[in-house]
């Protein structure tokens, strides 16, 4: 479901995925760079926020530096017909930031994923045990990250795209 963006809109996307200028009138500065007026930039950004093209507009913080020390990717083997209901239970928990249903694969029986955040690994385990009880799902695994190899924000409309 692609949308046809104009070249100046693509240029605006490229700039908005960098840092907003720390100047008194940053949207005017952005407009100057892409050939749009300040009013046009403000209207476009507001439109993108309203229709969900921009999922979030603001400061992205380092969670680990702000007190969330541990995160666990919990993976659950849920009967397909219960996935929607169980996903809803997990999504309602404050400690869960992301929750998806995904396909199973060779050597991978889990179809529901929930990212759990806590101060410690033990706290994540407690949250998972509580979610298991609430959802009535027994088979799950917690995958902790032992090393971060890469973490960047996607850059759209760069290079060959």
């Amino acid at each position: 479901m692609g949308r046809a963006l104009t070249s100046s809109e693509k240029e605006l996307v490229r700039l908005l995925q960098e840092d907003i200028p720390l100047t008194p009138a940053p949207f005017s500065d952005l407009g100057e760079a892409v050939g749009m007026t300040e009013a046009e930039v403000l209207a476009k950004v507001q439109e993108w926020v309203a229709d969900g093209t921009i999922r979030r507009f603001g400061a992205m913080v380092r969670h680990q530096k702000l007190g969330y020390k541990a995160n666990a990717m919990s993976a659950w083997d849920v009967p397909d017909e219960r996935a929607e209901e169980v996903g809803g239970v997990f999504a309602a928990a404050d400690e869960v930031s992301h929750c998806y249903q995904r396909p199973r694969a060779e050597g991978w029986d889990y179809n529901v994923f929930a990212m759990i955040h806590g101060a410690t690994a033990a706290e994540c385990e407690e949250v998972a045990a509580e979610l298991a009880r609430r959802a009535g799902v027994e088979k799950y695994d917690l995958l902790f990250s032992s090393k971060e190899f890469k973490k960047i924000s996607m850059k759209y409309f760069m290079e060959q795209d």
Partner: protein
Amino acid sequence: MDDTDKKIVTYIQAGFPVSAHPYADIGARLGLGEDEVIERIKGIMSSGEIRRLGASFDSRKLGYSSTLCAVHVAPEKLEDAIEVINSYYNVTHNYERNHHYNVWFTLIAPSPDRIREILAEMEERAGIGPVINLPAVKLFKIQVDLPVIDG
């Protein structure tokens, strides 16, 4: 960060004002001058507490496809394999995790076909695989506005 910095972070995490003079507007809400808001945000950004101040786009709305991938890589091959995987700008997050599938990464590309093409090329170049490709079939929650807490 002092309490004022934390208030600023909480405020601009939830939503940066889309207005002609956003820093003046933030200041008006928090009882600070425009210059002070700008100077404080500069400081918070250089300390690394804020990693980016901008827009997070929905890849689907821009016409892109995304997926979560996992692969088993033997310890002796790990370093070379990570170099190959990370060489794609399409790979945005990549973690080592405690499972037989020990390398987990997210990948964003213009189409599902392009994703399969990249994965096949990656398997070939790194001598790894199979990479399992787990695109979301249903989204139940995506929320990145965790509150600022003391730590």
